[in-house]
């Protein structure tokens, strides 16, 4: 049975995230330089039009009717616009490639690290957190790299270029244009500080609302059966209320920011016009320079807006990046290895707790399993059966005492060595996305098709011959869906291919319906022949035919012996057996 785990996978520190951000740039210096170069050039060409209009103004103001110079200047505007289109294209393209490359690197590294996690970590952390990181966080970081980062980068660069251009025209006007943006600094900081949490809350309230909707539709039969209509409507209304609350908050943030952004660039334009007017009147600036500066200030709104809108998204993604990078810190301990002299399993004085601060779930278990023996472990939920099974399979280490095979601690064995000796079969029969062949070959990379078909035949999986493409048939997500019994047969065929000395069955058929379970149990008979079998039993008939039965209660083995001995002993086992048999 599953226990509650409070142990969590690590999350990378702020410093580690900063390092990861730096690495994005340093591992791809050529890409970084190219993006920087093209984006700068694109921003520069975008500045041409207002500047050239200023020149036209000066020209017309100076000598009225010379169309040819005006034509040349206007032609330059068109030329700059074309150059702007082409350069913008390359800037976007290179930024896109940079993002795709970085993202591919990040996700591959994440999957590698995930696969390198020690079994005990996977068991302890559960797959829920990892799954959230895999599906959610990769997407968030991907979105940030592909959309947010270029927007913020381009926006910031354009802002700098525009301000720079005004400075070049006239430093005084440059200062004037900068006042508006400068005034935004404080509001911007105020906004960005609150936006992250605000939009995070909005996002989670949103998904809560759609989950409530989906659950109500999905569970509509249950709603009808239990008369839960009013409760579901209330739950829906509550999720709407929460979504509303979070939306009103982010709306409030925007209500503060937007008017100030809108107004600030207008303010810049006004200050530039007035200051420009004074300069022009005093002959310190040309009319064209003033007009250009005014047009530039009006252009500021777009890039500034873009930076403010996307910075929040970029911030949010750093939390995701921290979770992706955190997996690497979960440790990649390599078991020391060892060479067992035989296949005898020994459990001596074993104590176990899920966490150092938790109370023990096993209290001094001793057990010896000889090669070829068939042992059944029975007992109520929470007695520690599965925990003992996992220790026997080397998935985890005991807190005190030893679990060893042939004199070597099971958890010390290298994964390849371990799986040749002991394999744990649970009720989770994962079918991987891929062909039947892919699903089996993980157990024996060198196996031929004949070997694979042989393994399937051994577990009675004759259905493989009726599949449209035999071993090449695609399974899972979009492919063929196997039923529970077939999935179990697939799992058992893997065990046949791994060919371990010892098989530990942890309630392997518990989740199957009775007819399916019968079929699966038949298949298992073939797999188990000639191996040491430890069956954590769900139904008592499993125990009946075992060589020995261990009854567990409260983390201890309370009865141990063969079926007849235990029935005669008149303990808990005997009582159950009688009620089960209707005797």
């Amino acid at each position, binding site marked *: *049975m*599953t226990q*509650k785990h409070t142990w969590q996978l690590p999350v990378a520190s702020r410093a580690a995230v900063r390092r990861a951000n730096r690495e994005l740039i340093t591992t791809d210096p050529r890409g970084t330089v190219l993006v920087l170069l093209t984006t700068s050039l694109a921003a520069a060409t975008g500045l041409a039009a207002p500047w050239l*209009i200023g020149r*036209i*103004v000066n020209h017309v*103001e100076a000598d009225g*009717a010379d169309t040819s110079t*005006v034509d040349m200047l*206007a032609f330059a505007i*068109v030329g700059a*616009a074309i150059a702007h289109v082409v350069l*913008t*294209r390359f800037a*976007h393209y290179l930024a896109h490639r940079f993002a795709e490359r970085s993202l591919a690197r990040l996700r*591959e590294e994440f*999957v590698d690290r*995930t696969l390198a996690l020690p079994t005990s970590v*996977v068991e302890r952390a559960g*797959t829920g957190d*990892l*799954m959230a990181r895999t599906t959610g966080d990769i997407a968030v970081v991907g979105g940030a790299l592909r959309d947010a980062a270029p927007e913020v980068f381009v926006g910031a660069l354009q802002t700098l270029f525009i301000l720079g251009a005004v400075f070049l025209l006239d430093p005084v006007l440059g200062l004037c244009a900068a006042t508006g943006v400068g005034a935004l600094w404080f509001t911007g900081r105020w906004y960005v500080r609150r936006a992250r949490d605000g939009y995070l809350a909005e996002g989670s309230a949103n998904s809560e609302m759609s989950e409530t*909707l989906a*659950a109500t*539709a999905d*569970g*509509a039969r*249950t*709603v009808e059966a239990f*008369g839960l209509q009013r409760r579901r409507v209330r739950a829906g209304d509550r*999720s*709407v209320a929460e979504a*509303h609350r979070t939306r009103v908050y982010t*709306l409030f943030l925007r209500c503060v920011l*937007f008017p*100030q952004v*809108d107004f600030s660039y*207008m303010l810049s334009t*006004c200050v530039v016009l007035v200051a420009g*007017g004074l300069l*022009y009147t005093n002959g310190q600036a040309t*009319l064209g320079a003033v007009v250009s500066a*005014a047009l530039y200030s*009006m252009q500021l709104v777009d890039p500034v807006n873009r930076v403010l809108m996307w910075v929040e998204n970029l911030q949010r993604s750093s939390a995701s990046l921290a979770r992706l990078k955190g997996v690497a810190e979960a440790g990649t301990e390599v078991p020391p290895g060892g060479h067992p002299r035989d296949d005898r399993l020994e459990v001596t004085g074993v104590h176990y707790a899920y966490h150092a601060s938790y109370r023990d779930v096993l209290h001094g278990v001793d057990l010896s399993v000889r090669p070829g023996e068939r042992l059944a472990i029975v007992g*109520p*939920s929470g007695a520690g059966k599965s925990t003992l099974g996992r220790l026997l399979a080397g998935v985890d280490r005991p807190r005190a005492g030893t679990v060893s095979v042939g004199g070597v601690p099971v958890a010390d064995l290298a994964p390849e060595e371990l799986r040749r000796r002991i394999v744990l079969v649970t009720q989770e029969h*994962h079918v*991987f996305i891929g062909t039947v062949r892919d699903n089996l070959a*993980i*157990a024996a*990379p060198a196996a031929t098709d004949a070997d694979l078909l042989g393994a399937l035949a051994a577990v009675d999986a004759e259905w493989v011959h009726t599949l449209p493409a035999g071993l090449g048939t695609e399974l899972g997500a979009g492919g063929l869906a196997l039923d529970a019994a077939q999935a179990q047969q697939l799992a058992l065929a893997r*065990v046949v291919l791994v060919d371990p000395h010892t098989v530990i069955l942890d309630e392997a058929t*518990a989740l199957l*319906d009775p007819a399916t379970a019968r079929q699966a*149990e038949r298949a298992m008979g073939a797999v188990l022949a000639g191996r040491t079998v430890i069956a954590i039993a769900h139904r008592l*008939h499993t125990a009946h*035919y075992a060589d020995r039965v261990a009854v567990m209660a409260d983390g201890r083995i309370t009865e141990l012996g063969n079926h007849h001995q235990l029935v005669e002993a008149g303990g808990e086992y005997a009582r159950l057996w009688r*009620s*089960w048999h*209707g005797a």
Partner: protein
Amino acid sequence: MRLKAPHADPGVPDTQSALRYLLWLVRKQPGRVCLGVLFGSTWMLVLVVPPYLIAHAVDDGLRARDMGRLGLWTGLIALTGMVNSVIGIMRHRTMTFVRLDAGFRTVEVVIRHAVRVGAELPRRVSTGEVVSIGAADLDRIMRTMTTTGPGVGAVVAYAAVAVLLVGISPLLALVVLLGVPALLLSLGPLLNRMRETETAYREQQGALAARAGDIVAGLRVLCGIGGKDRFAERYRRESGALRDEGYRVGAVSSWIEAVTVGMPSLFLAAVTWLAARMTAAGEITIGEMVAVYGYVAMLATPVYFLIEGAQDINRGLVAARRVVRVLTLRPTVADHAATPCPTRAAELHDPASGLTVRPGELLAVAAASPADALAVADRLGRYVDSDATWAGRPLATMPVDEVRRRILVADNDAYLFAGPLRHAVATETDHDDHEIHAAVHTAVAEDVVTGLPDGLASYIEAQGRDLSGGQRQRLRLTRALLADPEVLILVEPTSAVDAHTESVIATRLRETRRDRTTVLIATSPLLLDLADRVVFLVDGRVAATGTHGDLLATEPGYRALAYRGSEEELV
């Protein structure tokens, strides 16, 4: 105009068509939409003013070196900017509320309808479709609302610019007013192509995400059986393929981005050229040239709104169609309410199988095929129309609500809703902690409650995803016991729990349901042995009836079923 959500009564939607549904969402908030149109139009109109004012500031102020008039015009620009930033935020605020009202109202009517349709809904609509309503469709429906405010405003602003341009130069007006929409319309096909390449990329991206999820879901298998290298290698290959596909998307999308930004500026350049020549020829003033530049630059905003709006409506209609499809579903079991339910506990009979349930008994039904037993449960629970009778009268014509309250079919597919444990096991009526603990005790689910950090207040994920199969099953049983119906039909209530627990559940269940009618669909001897009577179903018909002991002795098929696999050696 503030929004109160959730609505006390979301109203009755118009489900005759997707368009009518969208219009209904507009009609439900006439005041707010009118306000949105007002703010949207004013905002867009005022956007036209600054270029006009700047033109005057340049001509009358700067060129004339008249600081007084320059100050006046500049002051007006500042004032306009201030006024419009206020109008702009009023527009944004109003339109946000218009969008939210539409979105929230949709959630509310869909949920209210879903609980009315009940059992029929999951049969007719896939989970994916419903999830899509909650995720993407809602957003799209909300976006269509934008066209009501700024959409109208865009048309008004466009007309205003037309009038202003005609005043400066009819030729320029013609070029600009025809050119800008033609330009933006020409982007349409390009945008469509981008959407196609992006769709291909998204599919591949989805497949890669599924691969990563698959690796995580099967991580325990990979740890135990091996094959990590194969999966790492395969993921790397597919990730690389997605990156290359991403490059291809980038090649197209970057052109579109550049053209979207660049084409207007190219057009702007062409118009500026024209205007510059006119200025040089003295046909228009410098200020007017600056104004033309400003107008053309500004026109992109309303036209962009119009094109976006057209696309939003297209996508919104597709989304609304899905919503309307759910909203038009009707329950299959017709509620005639022609026959009253029996006033007291009465005999249930299912002619299709020949099964009879006597009032007050604990009846076990053992079926060789699980599907047969489920069919019996569906008929007795009135989830399908059948010839079943209650107190000799046809069940199919009795009021559904009362039947649901008095006969409960509790199966292992029953949905566990997310929330505090106390709510996860809730039924129609409220239960105090004492009652809940009593039901938890009967279902032997104490370890579930004590194993959670906050007992009954602990949060349970939807479908009890964070619990084991056995724990989920006992929570479902707890809920069924809390409902405490007159007739309780339990389908394999203990199939995922161990023998010890099962035997305890069996004893407590018998005690709790004493004098109430209980039907246990089960094959476990521990449960069968406890029943007053056991019915053995073969091919959907009653083959034998008796006590567990009787049937064991007389029916070899029953014996084989109850002691499945006993004849074969497993361990």
